[in-house]
């Protein structure tokens, strides 16, 4: 609001009029700050994150070309309905198909609690998790002076270790997109470097069905011969 003061003589000699042309900028500043806040929020929110994944090629891979994984260091996650996760360790042999307790059930972890999937992965991948933590601490101590290449190289070394955990993610038809992203997220959190998204096999479906029916399905049906 411009304040214009007018000093005028009443009658008599007319002296040169003096205008005070000071403009009050306060409302303008108010509006600017409002717009500023708006744009600050919009810019940070509009930029989404991306999660890179590399899928295995569907071309046939010969036996000796296939990556070698230690059976004892492998864990298979079956992403099921209603945010359930079924998992089993290592490889399943013929005899364990009939036993419905071969697979276990858990849930996804939340931000505040490590219970569920994260606890299971952490327990089995403690070494890599600790090494990654040390690496991150070292980077912090050096005041973020560590080049990105060095950090990536060393973290790949830790995650790619032969004794590091290998996770096979098999989303079932009943799962949803969030389940898949949550599972992939746990790989990041638990420093798992070796993981793959694979289709569930007949054997996996048999195990899950058997687990749901507490063994009744396994009694009525024969276990698949080639897991």
């Amino acid at each position, binding site marked *: 609001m411009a304040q214009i003061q007018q000093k005028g003589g009443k009658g008599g000699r007319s002296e040169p009029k003096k205008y005070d042309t*000071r403009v*009050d*900028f*306060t409302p*303008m*500043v108010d509006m*600017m*700050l409002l*717009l*500023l806040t708006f*744009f*600050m929020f*919009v*810019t940070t929110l*509009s*930029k*989404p*994150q*991306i*999660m*890179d*994944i*590399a*899928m*295995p*090629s*569907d071309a046939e891979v010969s036996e000796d070309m296939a990556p070698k994984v230690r059976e004892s260091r492998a864990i298979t996650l079956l*992403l099921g309905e209603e945010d359930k996760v079924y998992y089993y360790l290592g490889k399943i042999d013929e005899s364990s198909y009939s036993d419905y307790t071969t697979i276990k059930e858990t849930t996804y*972890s939340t*931000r*505040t609690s*490590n219970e569920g999937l*994260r606890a299971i992965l952490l327990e089995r991948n403690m070494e890599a998790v600790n090494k990654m*933590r040390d690496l991150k601490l070292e980077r912090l101590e050096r005041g973020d002076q560590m080049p990105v290449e060095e950090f990536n190289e060393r973290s790949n070394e830790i995650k790619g270790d032969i004794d590091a955990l290998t996770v096979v993610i098999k*989303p*079932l*038809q*009943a*799962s*949803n*997109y*969030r*389940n*898949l*992203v*949550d599972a*992939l*997220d746990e790989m*990041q*959190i638990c420093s798992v470097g070796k993981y793959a*998204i694979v289709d569930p096999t007949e054997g996996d479906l048999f195990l899950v069905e058997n687990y749901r029916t507490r063994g009744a399905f396994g009694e009525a049906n024969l276990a698949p011969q080639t897991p």
Partner: protein
Amino acid sequence: MAKAKKHDVWIDMTAMSDVTVLLLTFFILTATFLPPEPFRVVAPASVMEIKIPEYNVMTVLIDLDGKVFLNIDRPDVKLQVLEQMASEYGVTITDQQKRVFVEQPFIGVPMNRMPAFLDLPMSEHDAAMRNYGIPNDSTNNQFTDWILKARALDENMKITLKADETTPYPVIEKVMKDLVHIKANRYSFITVLRGAPDGF
């Protein structure tokens, strides 16, 4: 009698105004607006902190029923791919229709309906698109054609997938299989940021 003195407290706001205008300009210029999508999508949250690249990105938008829509952020590539697609599917597209095509951020109709779709007013595009999506079944997979042609022009173009977090997995699986089938094994999921749990 002593009269209460009146102070004129006048703060000069000009400098403040200058600063805010400067900051505002900066934020307006750096703001990146997402292309308007034909429907609302709530992306799942993840702890990944990698930002989506500024440029040279293809976004595959998947709706809950499995309809796919494609956004190519480079107008030059988009136009060339349209021309190739049009000749392959025997569709003629006028210059006016091409201009509309470049304006519309998402591709989402079968090729045989493309000219009629592009003649519609812009305001009806989203609604019309939601009924179709790019055909991606095994006999008529125009979706992989679009991607293959765009990647032939620039193989470094990044593919990102965007879907609602409640999308059933088989729907996503279909698109993922299609991409692997055309040897596009590396792609990204679009997620929104959530904080990592304490200590990680």
